[in-house]
């Protein structure tokens, strides 16, 4: 006899708004899912008619955890619109700022948001359970405390260059607002190394950064875990062993199609930022991976669909032409609309418009494309992992954590390349009318702005966040979004405490908080509910 249960996930976050997820379960497996963003703030509407530079103030404040990423791409959108020259030092500082925000997010997310679910009673029968509780229990876990508290350190470097984190606006078209002194750079190096010594190597890896980065295949990773006591018992080694033991590598696949808008520029290759020249200047590259193939990323192929979103408008609009005609959700519900998020889609050549997953896994898959310039990040590890393991909760986590040693090395390199006596800003000429596009990779994925300037002010502004890519609802063809897809097929051990849904949703690190409600699909009785907390 089959049993059907509906799980209702209600959002409780403040970053992008509140999220509800509803899930249907049959015979212990999720068969359908709906992600419902429940909050509308209208930032893009407010930006219309405002100062051209208003996005530098407004967009970082869209999100409490990705403010630096918002500033980075808002600034590049203006650089392309203003046709600026960006001094190479300014590009280095912007790269450093973007990267340290991501370095902050990685452990904070892992310990405060994700790993606390690993102490769930479901895993009591695992021989590693007691150790998981000892390390990861919220507040008191031996790894939780230093992991969360030390995650403050990387953004101290952000404050040194930008005055504060979060919500600085120190990147401006033509460069950055300040100019560092000698001790700004030396102190930054010291903070970074201190964080590396005390968390990244001592607690997380149990090995040197260099040793971890030698891993090129899934087998390399497994061999690394067993190489010695320190690696086996580091948080990374322990997490991999525990995750394999409890099956985090077996569900949460998603569509298997990915988008990266790329980030970090080679200073000399992108000192006159243009929309067309952007791909060639990226260090962590942009790209789309769909149907098992790599494609060049082209922002012109992005569109938004509002068929199931609480907006009036077309189901295929390029972001330059985006509108925000929000409607009362009670009215929208009658038209099968169920979310304030729009559904971003990408028109893949030869395939058509697809939902794509954004995030560290997407970046690391794109990083497996053969490189064409020395400065590009080429890294085959996750191409191999994907081929051998497929996507899963574990693989998504590993991709995120893999970026900590990678970007640590980059930040150290960029700090070393700053010419303190050089230029950090070149005053641009304000345009009367122009269009701009800027993108980056926030810790949780592709983040992009499109701006239209007319008569010296903002005529239109459109932000597409990684959470929109991942959490967006169905489109006009009823094709589900990436998190909806990843939830479908998830086995639920205990509908009274469906912790697996937490793992899957959290593996996307969406900057929204959710509550899950479980309903019996036949009787409508609520079986359980739980909160998926998030970084807000």
């Amino acid at each position, binding site marked *: 006899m089959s049993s059907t249960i509906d799980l209702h996930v209600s959002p409780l976050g403040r970053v992008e708004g509140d999220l509800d997820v509803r899930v249907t379960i049959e015979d212990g497996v999720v068969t359908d899912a709906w992600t419902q963003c429940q*909050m509308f703030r209208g930032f893009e509407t407010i930006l219309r008619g*405002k100062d051209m530079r208003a996005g530098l103030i407004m967009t970082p404040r869209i999100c409490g955890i990705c403010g630096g990423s918002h500033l980075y791409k808002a600034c590049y959108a203006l650089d392309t619109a203003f046709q600026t020259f960006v001094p190479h030092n300014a590009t280095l500082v912007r790269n450093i700022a973007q990267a340290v925000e991501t370095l902050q997010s990685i452990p904070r997310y892992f310990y405060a948001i994700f790993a606390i679910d690993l102490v769930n009673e479901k895993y009591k029968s695992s021989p590693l359970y007691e150790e998981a509780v000892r390390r990861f229990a919220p507040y008191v876990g031996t790894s939780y405390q230093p992991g969360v508290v030390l995650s403050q350190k990387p953004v101290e470097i952000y404050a040194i260059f930008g005055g504060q984190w979060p919500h600085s606006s120190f990147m401006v078209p033509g460069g950055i607002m300040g100019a560092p002194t000698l001790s700004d750079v030396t102190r930054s190096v010291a903070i970074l190394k201190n964080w590396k010594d005390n968390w990244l190597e001592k607690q997380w890896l149990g090995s040197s950064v260099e040793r971890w980065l030698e891993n090129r295949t899934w087998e390399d990773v497994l061999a690394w875990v067993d190489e010695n006591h320190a690696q086996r018992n580091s948080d990374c080694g322990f997490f991999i062993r525990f995750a394999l033991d409890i099956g985090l590598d077996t569900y949460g696949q998603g569509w298997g199609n990915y988008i990266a808008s790329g980030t970090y520029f080679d200073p000399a290759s992108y000192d006159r930022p243009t929309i067309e020249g952007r791909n060639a200047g990226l260090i962590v590259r942009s790209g789309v991976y769909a149907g098992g193939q790599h494609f060049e990323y082209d922002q012109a192929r992005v569109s938004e669909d509002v068929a199931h979103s609480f907006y009036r408008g077309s189901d295929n609009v390029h972001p330059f032409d985006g509108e925000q005609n929000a409607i*009362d959700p009670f009215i929208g519900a009658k038209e099968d609309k169920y979310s304030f998020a729009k559904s971003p889609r990408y028109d893949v050549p030869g395939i058509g418009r697809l939902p794509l997953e954004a995030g560290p896994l997407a970046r690391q898959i794109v990083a497996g494309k053969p490189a064409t310039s020395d400065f590009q990040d080429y890294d085959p590890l996750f191409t191999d992992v994907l081929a051998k393991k497929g996507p899963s909760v574990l693989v998504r986590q590993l991709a995120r954590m893999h970026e900590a040693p990678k970007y640590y090395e980059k930040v150290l390199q960029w700090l070393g390349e700053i010419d303190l006596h050089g230029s950090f800003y070149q005053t641009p000429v304000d345009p009367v009318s122009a269009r701009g596009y800027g993108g980056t990779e926030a810790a949780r994925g592709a983040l992009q702005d499109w701006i239209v300037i007319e008569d010296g002010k903002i005529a239109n502004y459109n932000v597409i966040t990684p959470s929109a890519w991942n959490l967006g609802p169905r489109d006009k063809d009823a094709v589900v979004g990436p998190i909806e897809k990843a939830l479908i097929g998830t086995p639920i051990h205990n509908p*009274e405490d469906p912790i697996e849904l937490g793992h899957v949703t959290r593996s996307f690190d969406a900057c929204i908080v959710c509550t899950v409600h479980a309903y019996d699909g036949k009787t409508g009785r609520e079986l359980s509910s739980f909160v998926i907390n998030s970084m807000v």
Partner: protein
Amino acid sequence: MSFLNADEPSVVDLIVDFGLEVLWHPSLGVEAGAAAKKIFTDCVDGTRPLDIFVFEGSVIEGPDGTGRFDLFADRPMKDWVTELAAAASIVVAIGDCAAFGGLPAVAPNPSGSTGLQFHRKARGGYLGADWVSKSGLPVVNIPGCPAHPDWITQIIVALATGRAGDIALDDLGRPQTFFTQFVHNGCTRNTFFEFKQSTLAFGEGTRTGCLFYEFGCRGPMTHAPCNRILWNRQSSKTRAGMPCLGCTEPEFPHADLAPGTVFATQLIAGAIPKDLPPGEDHVTYLAMAAAARISAPKWSKEDMFVV
């Protein structure tokens, strides 16, 4: 998220050392298998005592006063706010959105956002001008975008350690201990303000000068201790060459981000700053500025924050 950068006490200290019981927090909640909703309903009906209700984010009243642009645990968030605020001994608004409506409340305010007890400058907001909590206090506003984690944790520790009586509020509901002084106090560029020497460009241009004359710095008019209690233990916007945006004042963003007002000082007659430090008038200011410029020593026109 700024909150997680707190130190002495860190968020972990708050909970482990100060014994603060966080009933629910969007990033720190650990409820699993039990409805967060039950925590809220238990607080509302008094089953669980709610000592401090901390609210972040604007109160969203749209569309048409329904609040349905922000549904939380199956109902408009504003309805939760009404009930939880009534149940709490003390209500604290964290950040500009909760205090004053913040950025979402900027025209055309598409979401119908307002603050708990202010709408921008006007007392009133969602709860009303005369509203007081069970303990008899109006909403305690800790503004800023973001609020500094220290402003939050120190006030919470003060409340938790019986020092509520030491928290005097100004006429905007802000704790005076943090919001009497100006951002200007302690700014490393003060000496250039004194001699009316302006920074002329961003980047290397900020190795000298004050950001008040050209770049719209609101440090002299903004009440906040950003240059006393530094950000991330390291710096402040003005120290790093960025003009203060005045984000602890209810008018933020000033001039509602109108064209020409971002990172640019608004001038009268093309020369005199329109907004002056509180209490100064334009005539006196002109005389003082002229004298200051005449007396400006050579070093005040040279780079100071050098490599």
